[in-house]
């Protein structure tokens, strides 16, 4: 199994940390992982993206131009990465702030109202965990228990009290994901 994912959105949406938690979850179940961020000035308020690969084998290129899954959280990222999803691949997006719906006919498309649900939960910071939950519902590449272990690894000790809240958000995301198109 090799899953090649791009997660893309605005800086501050928790794009990089979502990728990190996913990578850590892979490690918790003895898989090979890589986490390759966009970096530099664009991180400061602009777009941010990270390529995460989880695999049973040695990972070759950490930099890709074709993805099994694209998780898209703003319009610029939709424009940039929708064309880079492999035929038959998966696109998951949050419709909040998306003005142009995805148009490809050869990929599976899902959406999750992450921003809206996070606002309903009263904590916009767990937005990325809702989206992660939605992704894991579509592609259960890592077990939830390993995600929780991964969270423990990637969060500093003082934030461990937030783990139950994160778990709730992941579960909410799993319930909230909607199918837009299946090929």
């Amino acid at each position, binding site marked *: 199994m090799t899953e090649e994912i791009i997660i893309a959105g605005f800086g501050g949406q928790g794009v990089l940390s979502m990728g*990190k938690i996913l*990578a*850590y979850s892979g*490690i918790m179940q003895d898989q*090979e*992982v*890589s*986490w*390759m*961020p966009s*970096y*530099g*000035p664009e991180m400061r308020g602009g777009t941010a993206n990270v390529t995460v690969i989880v695999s049973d084998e040695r*990972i*070759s*290129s*950490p*930099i*890709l*131009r*074709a993805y099994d899954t694209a998780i898209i959280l703003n319009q610029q990222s939709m424009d940039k990465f929708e064309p880079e999803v492999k035929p038959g691949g998966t696109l998951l997006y949050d419709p909040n702030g998306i003005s142009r719906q995805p148009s490809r006919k050869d990929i599976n498309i899902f959406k999750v109202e992450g921003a809206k649900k996070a606002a309903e939960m009263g904590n916009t910071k767990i937005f990325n965990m809702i989206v992660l939950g939605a992704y894991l519902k579509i592609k259960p590449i890592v077990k939830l228990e390993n995600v929780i272990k991964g969270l423990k*690894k*990637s969060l500093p000790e003082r934030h461990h009290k937030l783990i139950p809240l994160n778990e709730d958000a992941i579960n909410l995301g799993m319930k909230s994901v909607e199918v837009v198109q299946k090929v």
Partner: protein
Amino acid sequence: MGEIKLMKGNEALAEAIIRAGTDGYFGYPITPQSEVLEYLMASKPWETTGMVVLQAESEVASINMLYGGGGSGKKVVTSSSSPGISLMQEGLSYIAGAEIPILIVNVVRGGPGLGDIQPAQSDYFQSTKGGGHGDYRLIVLAPSSVQEMADFVPVAYDLAFKYRNPAMILSDGAIGQMMEKVEFFEPVPRLSDKEVKARYSWATNGKLKNGERRILTSLDLDPQKLEDHNHHLQEKYREIEEKEVRYEELQCDDAEYVLVAYGTSARVSLKAVKLLRDKGIKVGLLRPITLWPFPTKTIQNMVEQGVKGFLSVEMSAGQMVEDVRLAVNGKVKVEHFGRLGGVIHSPEEVVEALEQKIIGE
């Protein structure tokens, strides 16, 4: 071996620097490698191993701190990225001339000039052909994973001290910034002052009790003496070329074509090998681990064994390709492919390049 961690290449390098028994790190911030100094300052190794960490006023000062510290027999290191490494070239030339073992890490970014902060491999010439003035070489190791960012630190130190020569870890922004699994080697204790004095009789840390004193200099106003010194250096370089070549061959046994690539390009090329093999094309990957000394003989053997063509895949306008061509010496086709200025080629682009530039005709 201990716990598996998920870390950036730069952080893994910094942790490895502490674990390798380093006595001093001297450096100046520059993207994309600032995490090294940040990690070291946050780790406070002076409270645990006694290691000195100092943010210098410039890269010029950093490299000269390495001259002083390395010259006193201590294990010292600096890290920077391309423009900073250019500033260090004067110091490196002096260090090579005075035969001082030090470690320097270049997390390469796009150039020339201020360039950008994205990953590149356009400092190959500078790293492997000397870089500063005079006839000298650095021992250059090229990691292609976060694991190797850590593992190459003690290897580079060993080579530097074995040959009294500056060693370089030539990485790039992608390997510096990406996170992968890393498992660290057991920490090596720092040498005591007594051990340093006993091991390195050339080091300047106070005249010996028998009255013998040490001078570290790269100056010899007598041209005959300077020629002799240069011959001594060249002899040392021949020995390094003979004994210290390191490389990895992947799927080369039956290969008709070989991609030659290091660092991030080797990772991309490995994926290209898979895509090409899926198409039934017999391709292998030669990954030089030491860029100097270069695996010249390995390439010559491949030519003898019937490899029909080589594609040197580099994020540069074609630098390592010259060393591949020197090794092949006109016997089969050698071409270069690579994106420039901080753009990383995709595996698909490498596939296309091999098909068009090497197989096609």
